């Protein structure tokens, strides 16, 4: 990626990256659409021999041979038996029965995590810079599990099996399905077994935002990643006939429109279809569109397809209008015609003009790449939100990372829009999604793994979470672009990743297989349920009181009952106690508690308020007692707990929800 390393503070003189020799021993396994090995991001110049721990292969298939791999891309395999069992044999005129990436997504995620540095990278001149993965010297192993018809759980499980056996250190999965209990969730089961063997599993949170409860991949042993913006924009200016100018966003790179104004129409008014406003294929009337700029509403079909529909109907330009669902979120696309995606407020102003002026006109002009956009980061509207519907007592997502308008490597098989009619070929593309934020965290986890080779996946995740930031310099929470309002831990979890701080977190919340088994007992899982996930025979002790609040998690989610709930009543208080254990991973130090709360209806008592560590890996336990006044169902509240020795800040978000 270009710019996200700088945005994350990597490469600064005060950053302390692990030695390159140790990074090059770390292997990131990416389960996705495969890989396009010829791009420069997989250049292995300067990398030493493949780690001796590697047991994987470079699988030969259509347009893919053993020489497609090298000392950067050390493994590439494909898993299609489940897909082919359901859909029939792969049509090799449509997709490669090999690890080759015909889609682009897998190449983008793999290079984001651990691509080599490539100077002069850009998409048509946009986002120009040196593109590099987060762990530039880590090795990549690609496991192709996603095909034109989707990613099948039997294939995913086979790939996870292979990744674990091959010796990867981090698994990056920018995929998701529905939600189900952990013992019926293939990815959760596979991730558990990987984590139990010391492999960190990072997954995308999903693009179901801004709807509440839209998260996927919520198991507590998974690192669940939401998406935020960079301080970078690709402005495309809209000038209207009434003299007003607006700023939108676009990656269009072809012949620009002239400065003269063109007729402006709203798609819904030049269509015979009730959904004509969406610019779906075949819905626009060419005679009413030809030579004009068309306003299309966002939603249903892809953003780039709308532009293609306008172009194929004779339109000369498109204004892509965000609706309420998307708010002010501006996602850039390499449109096939001059276009500008505008936020809802701008869209409303442009539509008002188009509807009120008898002869509305407009033009669109590109503004190139703009850096230093503030505020940043802001939470992406599409980023899936909590609460966690499987276990509300575990706060998800865990954190956010850059996932909007990310430039990274691309396939040579399709153009940047992914449309079959797009015949352009690019080595880098700019796309958005929690798919893009997940591999950022996977690569950063690889850096931490290299710096602290004996840390468990839970410790690495804790380092990433407790050092994340949730506020701007003015103290206000990271904004939610969907609403323009401050977001909450249900949106960003612990906050935005801060890798430099994560390399030296001071303290970590570690967790072992036994901790997760106690968590299953708290969920009232049977011995069979536990065996399905943990592959261990374990029967919960019926005399022991297990609590979900005792899972040693780096964040807190407290479910409280309303007045009408069990044991409730107007003015009745309920008390919940959580226990946590911190492990010192720094020098001997005394950490003092600091607590901030925006929820006066909950009293928070932490005992003790000071923790002294005299040696490395020493553990100290504390309890947090929440005493809450009953609130109406659906009420949420938030607080923040911090331990600091004056050098390190070990932060944890706290979310309260009354149900």
């Amino acid at each position, binding site marked *: 990626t270009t710019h996200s390393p700088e945005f994350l503070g990597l490469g600064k003189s005060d950053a302390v990256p692990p030695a390159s020799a140790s990074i090059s021993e770390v292997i990131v396994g990416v389960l*996705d*659409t495969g890989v396009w090995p010829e791009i420069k991001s997989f250049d292995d110049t300067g990398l030493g021999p493949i780690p001796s721990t590697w047991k994987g292969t470079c699988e030969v298939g259509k347009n893919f041979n053993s020489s497609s791999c090298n000392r950067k891309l050390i493994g590439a395999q494909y898993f299609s*038996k*489940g897909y082919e*069992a*359901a859909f029939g044999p792969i049509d090799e005129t449509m997709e490669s029965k090999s690890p080759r990436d015909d*889609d682009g*997504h897998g190449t983008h995620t793999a290079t984001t995590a651990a691509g080599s540095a490539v100077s002069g990278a850009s998409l048509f001149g946009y986002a120009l810079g040196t593109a590099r993965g987060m762990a530039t010297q880590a090795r990549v192993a690609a496991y192709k599990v*996603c095909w034109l*018809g*989707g*990613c*099948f*759980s*039997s294939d*995913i*499980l*086979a790939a*996870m*099996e*292979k990744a*674990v*056996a091959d010796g990867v250190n981090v698994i990056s999965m*920018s*995929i*998701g*399905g*529905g939600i189900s209990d952990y*013992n*019926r969730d*293939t*990815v959760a*089961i*596979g991730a558990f*077994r*990987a984590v139990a063997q010391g492999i960190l599993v990072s997954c*995308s*949170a*999903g*693009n179901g935002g801004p709807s509440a409860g839209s998260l996927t991949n919520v198991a507590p042993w998974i690192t669940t990643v939401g998406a935020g913006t960079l301080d970078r924009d690709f402005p495309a200016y809209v000038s209207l006939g009434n003299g007003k100018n607006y700023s939108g966003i676009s990656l269009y790179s072809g012949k620009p429109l002239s400065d003269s104004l063109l007729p402006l129409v709203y798609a819904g008014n030049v269509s015979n279809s009730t959904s004509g406003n969406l610019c779906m294929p075949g819905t626009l009337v060419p005679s009413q569109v030809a030579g004009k700029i068309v306003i299309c509403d966002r939603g249903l079909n892809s953003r780039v397809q709308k532009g293609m529909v306008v172009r194929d109907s004779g339109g000369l330009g498109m204004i892509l209008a965000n609706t309420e669902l998307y708010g002010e979120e501006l996602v850039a696309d390499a449109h096939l015609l001059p276009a500008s995606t505008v936020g809802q407020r701008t869209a409303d102003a442009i539509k008002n003009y188009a509807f009120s002026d008898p002869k509305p006109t407009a033009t669109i002009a590109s503004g190139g790449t703009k850096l230093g956009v503030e505020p940043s980061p802001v939470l992406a509207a599409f980023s899936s939100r909590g609460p966690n519907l499987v276990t509300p007592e575990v706060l998800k997502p865990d954190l956010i990372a850059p996932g909007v308008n990310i430039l990274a490597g691309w396939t040579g098989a399709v153009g940047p829009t992914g449309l079959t009619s797009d015949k352009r070929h690019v080595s880098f593309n700019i796309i958005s*999604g*929690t*798919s893009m934020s*997940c591999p950022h965290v996977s690569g950063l986890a690889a850096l931490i793994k290299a710096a602290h080779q004996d840390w468990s996946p839970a410790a690495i995740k804790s380092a990433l979470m407790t050092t994340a930031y949730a506020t701007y310099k003015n103290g206000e929470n990271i904004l939610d672009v969907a609403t323009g309002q401050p977001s909450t831990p249900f949106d960003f979890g612990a906050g935005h990743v801060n890798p430099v701080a994560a390399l030296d977190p001071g303290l970590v919340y570690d967790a072992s297989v036994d901790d997760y088994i106690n968590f299953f007992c708290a969920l009232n899982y049977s011995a*069979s349920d536990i*065996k*399905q996930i943990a*592959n261990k*025979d374990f029967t919960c002790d019926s005399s022991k009181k297990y609590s979900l609040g005792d899972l040693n998690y780096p964040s807190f989610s407290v479910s409280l009952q309303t007045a009408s709930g069990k044991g409730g009543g107007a003015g009745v208080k309920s008390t919940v106690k959580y226990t946590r254990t911190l492990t010192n991973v720094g020098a001997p130090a005394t950490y003092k508690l600091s607590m901030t709360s925006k929820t006066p209806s909950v009293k928070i008592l932490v005992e003790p308020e000071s923790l002294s560590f005299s040696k490395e890996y020493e553990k100290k336990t504390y309890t947090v007692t929440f005493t809450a006044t009953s609130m109406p169902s659906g009420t949420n509240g938030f607080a923040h707990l911090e331990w600091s020795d004056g050098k390190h800040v070990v932060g944890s978000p706290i979310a309260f929800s009354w149900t």
Partner: protein
Amino acid sequence: SQQTKKTFIVHMDMSKMAATYEDHFQWYDSSLKSVSESADMLYAYNNIIHGFSTRLTPEEAELLEKQPGILSVLPEMIYKLH
């Protein structure tokens, strides 16, 4: 019949494998053949879980789930890119 078949991931409990089997693959195959003569394994799993994936009718899947040593029979899920 083939059209009604769906893919299932069959999760086996290794501790229940009878000593008469030479290896777990033989046990998987025997369990599968006890409900379907025609079904083949797509994958055999051994690192993440012990088990296999295969194509079964819903009736066969239900029957298999009741066999000793079977922890679960999960229907195939389709995941999407994010």
